[in-house]
């Protein structure tokens, strides 16, 4: 029962990040590098720590560089450690050029992105991975910009392992963590993490919302380890008739302003994304 993360930490009720952090047990000898964000708060205030593994807090832009340096140092000292750059989607926006360069150099560490689709720690400002038309404090009428698919972008760097996962399917997520932990080279996992206060839904619905995202096709589960494939849990939603109506997923406070026409537009965007993914085989 005693895991990498200890109970009584500062995460909100129903937090998807602490759910994903508990799955770090699957990775051997984890060393976390955490740029500022919700995860920093969860890791605790000095002299207490909620984590049982070494944690390095780093500035936003430096997280990939710090992780790269740490993993090289461990290698020279002969310590077999899995350095993990654990960041949110905000830190990905800010450290993107360092992350991209690091992926191109094939540095030896794991990047895990817990994507709650906005800058939640500072009060829900829109990020590049915020869902289309979602309401945030910087897009009060719904986000108009495009949504960036960071996992596909990292895949384009020809890295060793890239995957998307969801806190609604923890067995799949644990399998991907385990697989990444056993590999070497640059590994990237993108975890979908529905945030109850930021997306405005009751705290007990975290898992349900995460599953509905996959079931409606809004979040696609796939992995790449030399060959590209859809994950078993989300495979059947490639066919449109298997999906649940998108309306079911959009039952969140941040989408309450949408009308029928806008929902149709969103469905079209999701179909386009699936088309791209299905061409990658």
């Amino acid at each position, binding site marked *: *029962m005693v*895991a990498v*993360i*200890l*109970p*009584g*930490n*500062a*995460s909100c*009720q*129903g*937090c*998807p990040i*602490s*759910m994903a952090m*508990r799955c770090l047990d699957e990775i051997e000898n984890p060393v976390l590098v955490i740029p500022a964000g919700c995860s920093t708060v969860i890791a*605790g*205030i*000095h*002299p*207490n*720590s*909620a*984590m*049982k593994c070494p*944690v390095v807090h780093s500035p936003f832009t430096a997280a990939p560089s710090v992780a790269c340096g740490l993993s090289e140092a461990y290698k020279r000292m002969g310590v077999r450690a899995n350095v993990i750059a654990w960041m949110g989607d905000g830190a990905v926006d800010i450290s993107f050029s360092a992350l991209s360069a690091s992926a191109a150099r094939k540095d030896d560490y794991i990047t895990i992105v817990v994507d709650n689709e906005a800058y939640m720690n500072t009060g829900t400002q829109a990020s590049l991975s915020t869902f289309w038309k979602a309401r945030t404090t910087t897009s009060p009428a719904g986000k108009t910009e495009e949504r960036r698919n960071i996992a596909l972008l990292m895949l384009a760097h020809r890295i060793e392992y890239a995957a998307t996962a969801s806190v609604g399917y*923890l*067995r799949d997520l644990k399998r991907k963590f385990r697989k990444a932990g056993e590999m070497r080279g640059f590994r990237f996992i993108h975890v979908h993490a529905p945030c*109850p206060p930021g997306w405005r839904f*009751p*705290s*007990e*619905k*975290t*898992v*349900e919302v995460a599953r509905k995202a996959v079931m409606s096709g809004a979040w696609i589960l796939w992995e790449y380890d030399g060959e590209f494939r859809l994950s078993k849990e989300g495979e059947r939603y490639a066919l449109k008739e298997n999906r649940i109506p998108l309306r079911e997923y959009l039952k969140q406070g941040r989408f309450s302003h949408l009308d029928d026409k806008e929902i149709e537009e969103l469905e079209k965007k999701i179909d386009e994304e699936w088309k791209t993914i299905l061409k990658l085989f």
Partner: protein
Amino acid sequence: MDLSPLIAKPTYGSAGETGRWRNYRPVINTELCIKCGECMMYCPEGVISKNLIINYTYCKGCGVCREVCIQKAIVMMPE
């Protein structure tokens, strides 16, 4: 130089006794429970043990366990 005060130590309850945040208390109905372990796996706080005893000192009462329970064996009682 003694560096030990500079190093943070792993502590239970690093944010205090988080059980005090709770409005509703999850209670497992042992007659309905089939010990599948879903609640244990999905609990964000990790307070449900292998023999399905809930640590109420740190349970924040989010209710995720009730939602993932296939048997509907968990009820949320008002504190």
